[in-house]
């Protein structure tokens, strides 16, 4: 088994160290940290992929920049949970070599203690987001 990339491992440790209530606060902080979409995507929304499995409209796009993964996402302010999911994945995947990003376990979202905090059903949206991100990346492989 390959080791989990450092950023994702750290995010997991941070969540698991907290009580259920504080995990929600950390997820909220992640949602506030989601960077705005780069200008070039704001003007060209067709290049973004919609994550249908999430209850609120969320769009993601993965790029390979000189061998390094870049993830961008956009979700409305009224959907902080979805923004938080996207932000965790963006922070965890951004900057990874392609191979390392593709090796991230598909069930990572289910291992960071969010099922208790937000319910397993909602975590499904994040699992789907990771699957779609990896599928986009596979096109670069």
């Amino acid at each position, binding site marked *: 088994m390959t080791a989990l990339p450092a950023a994702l491992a750290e995010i997991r440790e941070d969540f698991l160290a907290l009580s259920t209530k504080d995990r*929600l*606060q950390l*997820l*909220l902080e992640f*949602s506030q940290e989601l960077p705005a979409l780069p200008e070039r995507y704001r003007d060209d929304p067709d290049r973004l992929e919609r994550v*249908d*499995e*999430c*209850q*609120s*409209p969320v769009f993601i796009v993965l790029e390979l920049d000189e061998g390094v993964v870049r993830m961008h996402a956009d979700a409305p*302010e*009224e*959907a*902080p*949970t*979805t923004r*938080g999911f996207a932000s965790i994945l963006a922070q965890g995947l951004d900057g990874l070599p392609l191979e390392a990003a593709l090796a991230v376990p598909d069930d990572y979202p289910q291992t960071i203690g969010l099922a*208790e*905090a*937000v*319910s397993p*059903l*909602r975590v*499904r*949206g994040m699992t*789907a987001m990771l699957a779609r991100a990896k599928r986009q990346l596979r096109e670069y492989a």
Partner: protein
Amino acid sequence: MAIAADPHAGFQDYADPAKLVTTQWLADNLGADGLVVVESDEDVLLYETGHIPGAVKVDWHTDLNDPVMRDYLDGAGFARLLGEKGIRRDDTVVIYGDRSNWWAAYALWVFELFGHPDVRLLDGGRAAWIAEGRELATAAAERGESDYPVVERDDSTLRAFKDDVLAHLGGPLVDVRSPQEYSGERTTAPDYPDEGALRAGHIPTAVNIPWSKAVADDGRFLDRAALETLYLRENGLDASSPAIAYCRIGERSSHTWFAMRYLLGMTDVRNYDGSWTEWGSAVRVPIVQGSQPGEVPGR
């Protein structure tokens, strides 16, 4: 000690005008002894981003559902939850939430399964409060604990199970999902995740009245006359007959249940919370596809 109803003129034609409050009434009554405001949203983090000052949060997934069985809390669990939230049995509870009060109506329906005496909805929900630029707080409200009695859930009057629906076929039945889900083009709401139903379509004889038709663009309920046109005249429901509403998991149909029960005054309306995620996966229950209600199958 129930708090006096909102005398808002626009509510007076409703069968039970006391079940709704306006944003202005709520703003004027915030902090009153005996009033508790509850936020219940689809998005579990919205409350943390800012809520009506003093409001406590109740989440449909993590608070109202039994964590193992597909069911709601039992009497002891509900007493524990409301005790932790600092809600007393004689408090007036006003619930509001995102998405035109879908989840707020669902929470209200669960509160009523336990017979909480006075539960109301904030007309227009969270969006109306925010659109009017009203005050929000981010720190979680601390009400202290209360001593809420253990009251057993009553599933016999407001809740329908699959067998009840089978026995009711041919009687007034309202499918509040989107036309695409009703006809069988898809099993999930447009823009929604798949919560798992193996077959698509609707329960035979159900009429399709998407839940959102009961509210205006601003998320507030239509007036009595418009609701009567929608449910009674256009779709042929009879206000005096027992009716059942369903959707996918019982949340959108709670909203319709509220409108039928309290705004139109239909005295016997039940919500089938098993809804399509149960019916669409159950073995040998009849299903109709297409845009017509269909017939009761021969028994």
